[in-house]
């Protein structure tokens, strides 16, 4: 399916084009170009929704690195579709919002480049079917998130937050990669669809549990689950459109996607259930409890996102029990949990997205997000207030908003654990509904804080330098208004979403239950007087009570020191690593080039020595060697003389010229042996190096005979002799052996396969093109490195003189 491929690559291509188009569409007008991309992709994708709900899925594969089993395969099914629609849909709204959020003075072009980069990477994560490709895109989302968080890189907090999020998510990603490799070791395939069909093989393997836990670490770090959640509040230093997009609607849901995607593979085991649901519930409770104490609105929303992600995660954990149960009534109970998870994920994106945008508006118009300095805005900013009201009440789980529906489903799923009395439920599981309920009470409290402390109460006089409060321009209100109306619309027509979007996704999570009645339950607004509704009423009553008494019990947060310990642990670990690294580095980075050469040579000798010991066949075969001609002998004699003479040279010029003699003699030798390519290269390299030497003269100190101790001299001499011997031994051994296939086969095939007669170059350009390309890249990077080192040094020098 070319559509899917387009969806991944169009954002990347557009990201490359942004700098050029920015020259034509100057200022914020570039946003109008950018917005066409997610909008176009959204329309492209949504046209496929009907065929997906008929059970179709789109798989497309083409070889990328076939020799390593890496195929660039994309797979679009119901689960990918939900995420792809969220990415492109919310993406369009966020771009629209950001056009008016960012001021003209900022590096808008850079912002949109990163944003499109992220969009492409995120679509790649949810659409790729090959685990390695998925991993590449996964890390790419971490990198683009890093770039976006550090968008205002002149702020220290931004840089700190960016680094923290990058370190945590990338480390998690590497764990995940190891998990993927284990899966490959078990099954021999990287393809998700094949892995799903081989789930029995995987479950029987001894690597099953380690692979599962490693993949889960990847998912938990990305989705900010306890105890890895500490990066998300710091990521709030990013511009608000980024927080709304990456850190609430899409990127943090990548972990959810991964868990849902791997449910069919791992969920047969109860370990999966316990880990996923316990971590999810703990995160939910922890996030909501911490959200209440925040005074910065954005930090509050960050903790609330952590908590909501935990809630979705715990639902997915319960949903996995469907694989462990046998009775069909139980299966339907548990699949309903997954259904609730996916449903709540969509709802969360709508209400949290609108709330973030509201906070962005407040920040933009009033210059502060601190609750203590906000108040009484309901009459001044009526539209913003309405949107905030809808968003918060939906998050609190109140009707008539979509959050109510998914909250009810959440309670139902938690209660179903008790009803379905299987796998010898221990006391831990009985706690689940209680923890969920307490978490929901705190959720209710922080939702009230958002609404009442910001929009009611007395109006604060603007601080000096601040503008008086007023309603935001309509252009900034459109996006949150769209999301806010979705919140209400989904409440009214939940089953439309259920049939067309959630149904196909359920089939993707539960491939073996496809078509089972009850897999896609009908969402009802009214369940009758049952436990979930009582729980909701309890939440409301206790929530209001606790909110009213907030200032009497807020003191307990002074006891809640665990959050700080986690953060402190992170900071202390980093500091310790840096200190140890610098101590270790200082022991061997002496600054003396001679020492470095010694390291390189020692390593080389060790490598060759070990290799030869393993080889254990010292056959020197001189029988086929040609006779050394007299002219060759002379050249070699010259080379020997010059190399020995270097040791006794008294001035630097002499040494360099002698070195040149050596080089040019080798070139002549190449000519004699009919290797014109090599000779040419050798001559030019020799010329260029000589020029470099001459340039470096300027920096070098006076040439003097250093009086080193005897032991140093012996040591260096030994290293030199040993490396010479190593090279000679290798050269002689190569003559006598044919361990590796000779390259002379290329002589016969070069012309036919590569259409060239110069064997050396066909090898470089065709048979080994990959190596050549990498060498070119390395050369380029090294060149840039040298250049920037030289430039940096000079800058430092200048600063130094200024100080003087």
């Amino acid at each position, binding site marked *: 399916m070319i559509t899917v491929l387009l969806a991944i690559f169009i954002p990347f291509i557009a990201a490359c084009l942004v700098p050029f188009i920015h020259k034509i569409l100057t200022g914020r007008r570039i946003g109008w170009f950018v917005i066409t991309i997610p909008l176009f992709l959204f329309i492209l994708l949504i046209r496929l929704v009907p065929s997906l709900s008929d059970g179709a899925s789109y798989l497309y594969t083409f070889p990328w690195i076939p020799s390593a089993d890496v195929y660039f395969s994309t797979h679009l099914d119901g689960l990918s579709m939900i995420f792809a629609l969220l990415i492109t849909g919310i993406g369009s709204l966020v771009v629209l919002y950001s056009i008016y959020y960012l001021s003209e003075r900022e590096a808008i072009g850079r912002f949109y480049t990163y944003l499109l980069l992220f969009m492409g990477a995120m679509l790649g994560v949810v659409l790729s079917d090959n685990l390695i490709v998925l991993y590449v895109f996964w890390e790419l989302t971490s990198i683009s998130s890093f770039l976006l968080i550090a968008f205002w890189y002149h702020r220290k907090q931004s840089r700190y937050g960016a680094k923290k999020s990058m370190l945590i998510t990338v480390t998690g990603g590497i764990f995940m990669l190891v998990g993927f490799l284990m899966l490959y070791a078990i099954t021999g395939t990287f393809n998700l669809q094949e892995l799903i069909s081989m789930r029995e093989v995987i479950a029987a393997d001894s690597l099953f549990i380690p692979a599962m836990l490693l993949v889960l670490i990847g998912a938990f770090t990305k989705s900010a689950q306890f105890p890895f959640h500490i990066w998300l509040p710091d990521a709030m230093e990013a511009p608000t459109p980024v927080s709304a997009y990456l850190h609430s609607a899409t990127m943090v849901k990548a972990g959810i996607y991964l868990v849902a995607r791997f449910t069919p593979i791992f969920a047969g085991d109860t370990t999966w259930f316990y880990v996923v649901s316990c971590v999810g519930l703990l995160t939910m409770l922890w996030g909501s409890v911490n959200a209440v104490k925040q005074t910065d609105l954005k930090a509050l929303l960050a903790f609330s996102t952590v908590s909501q992600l935990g809630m979705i995660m715990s639902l997915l954990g319960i949903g996995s029990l469907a694989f462990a149960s046998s009775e069909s009534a139980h299966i339907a109970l548990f699949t309903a949990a997954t259904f609730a998870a996916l449903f709540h994920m969509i709802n969360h994106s709508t209400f949290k997205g609108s709330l973030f945008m509201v906070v962005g508006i407040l920040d933009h118009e009033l210059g502060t997000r601190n609750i203590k300095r906000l108040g009484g805005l309901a009459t001044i900013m009526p539209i913003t207030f309405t949107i905030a009201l809808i968003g918060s009440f939906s998050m609190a789980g109140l009707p008539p908003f979509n959050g109510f529906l998914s909250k009810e489903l959440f309670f139902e799923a938690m209660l179903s654990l008790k009803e379905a009395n299987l796998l010898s439920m221990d006391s831990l599981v009985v706690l689940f509904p209680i923890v969920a309920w307490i978490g929901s009470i705190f959720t209710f409290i922080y939702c009230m804080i958002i609404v009442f402390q910001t929009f009611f109460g007395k109006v604060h006089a603007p601080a000096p330098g601040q503008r008086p409060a007023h309603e935001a321009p309509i252009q900034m209100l459109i996006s949150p208004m769209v999301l806010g109306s979705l919140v209400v619309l989904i409440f009214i027509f939940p089953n439309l979403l259920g049939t067309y979007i959630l149904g196909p996704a359920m089939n993707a999570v539960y491939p073996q239950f496809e078509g089972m009645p009850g897999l896609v339950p009908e969402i009802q607004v009214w369940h009758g007087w049952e436990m979930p509704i009582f729980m909701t009423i309890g939440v409301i009553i206790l929530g209001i009570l606790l909110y009213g008494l907030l200032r009497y019990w807020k003191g307990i947060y002074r006891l809640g020191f665990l959050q700080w310990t986690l953060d402190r642990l992170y900071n202390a670990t980093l500091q310790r690593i840096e200190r140890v690294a610098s101590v270790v580095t200082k022991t061997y980075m002496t600054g003396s080039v001679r020492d470095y050469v010694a390291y390189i040579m020692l390593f080389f000798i060790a490598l060759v020595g070990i290799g030869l010991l393993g080889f254990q066949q010292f056959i020197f075969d001189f029988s086929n060697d040609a006779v050394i001609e007299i002219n060759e002998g002379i050249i070699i004699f010259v080379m020997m003389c010059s190399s020995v003479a270097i040791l006794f040279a008294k001035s630097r010029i002499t040494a360099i010229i002698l070195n040149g003699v050596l080089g040019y003699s080798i070139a002549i030798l190449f000519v004699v042996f009919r290797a*014109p390519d090599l000779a040419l290269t050798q001559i030019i390299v020799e010329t260029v190096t000589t*020029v470099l030497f001459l340039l470096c003269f300027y920096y070098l100190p006076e040439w003097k005979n250093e009086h080193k101790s005897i032991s140093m001299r012996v040591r260096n001499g030994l290293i030199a002799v040993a490396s010479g011997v190593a090279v000679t031994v290798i050269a002689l051994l190569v003559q006598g052996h044919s361990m590796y296939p000779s390259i002379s086969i290329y002589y016969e095939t070069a012309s036919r396969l590569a259409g060239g007669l*110069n064997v*050396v170059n066909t090898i470089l350009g065709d048979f080994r*093109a990959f190596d050549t390309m990498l060498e070119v890249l390395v050369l380029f990077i090294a060149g840039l490195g040298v250049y920037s080192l030289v430039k940096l040094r000079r800058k430092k020098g200048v600063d130094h003189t200024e100080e003087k």
Partner: protein
Amino acid sequence: MSGHNNPGGGFIGGLVLSSAFVLLYLVYDIETVHRGTPFDFKRVAALGVLLAVGTGMLSILFGESFLSQTTWLVDLPVFGETELGTMTIFEAGVALTVLGVVVTIILGISEDVE
């Protein structure tokens, strides 16, 4: 092209080019040469990498595996029957990278001297 059937090729080509520049810098001075050839050599190197990687990517679009090369025999008006290949572009990329990097380093160090 000559590199494909006769001695030559991207790496050597780049080195020859860069040694030409280096010698020019030695004979004249940096300003004079820059007036004649106003390139930023960092960009030359970047262009080279882009060409080399780009030709590799191109083959993916035609359904071949990464870095596959093809050749065509074309009748050009002046050169007669000539072999044109994507290899040429790849090698040109290599040459430009080598040129860019070598000249950048040498210029960087020499500018430092002044």
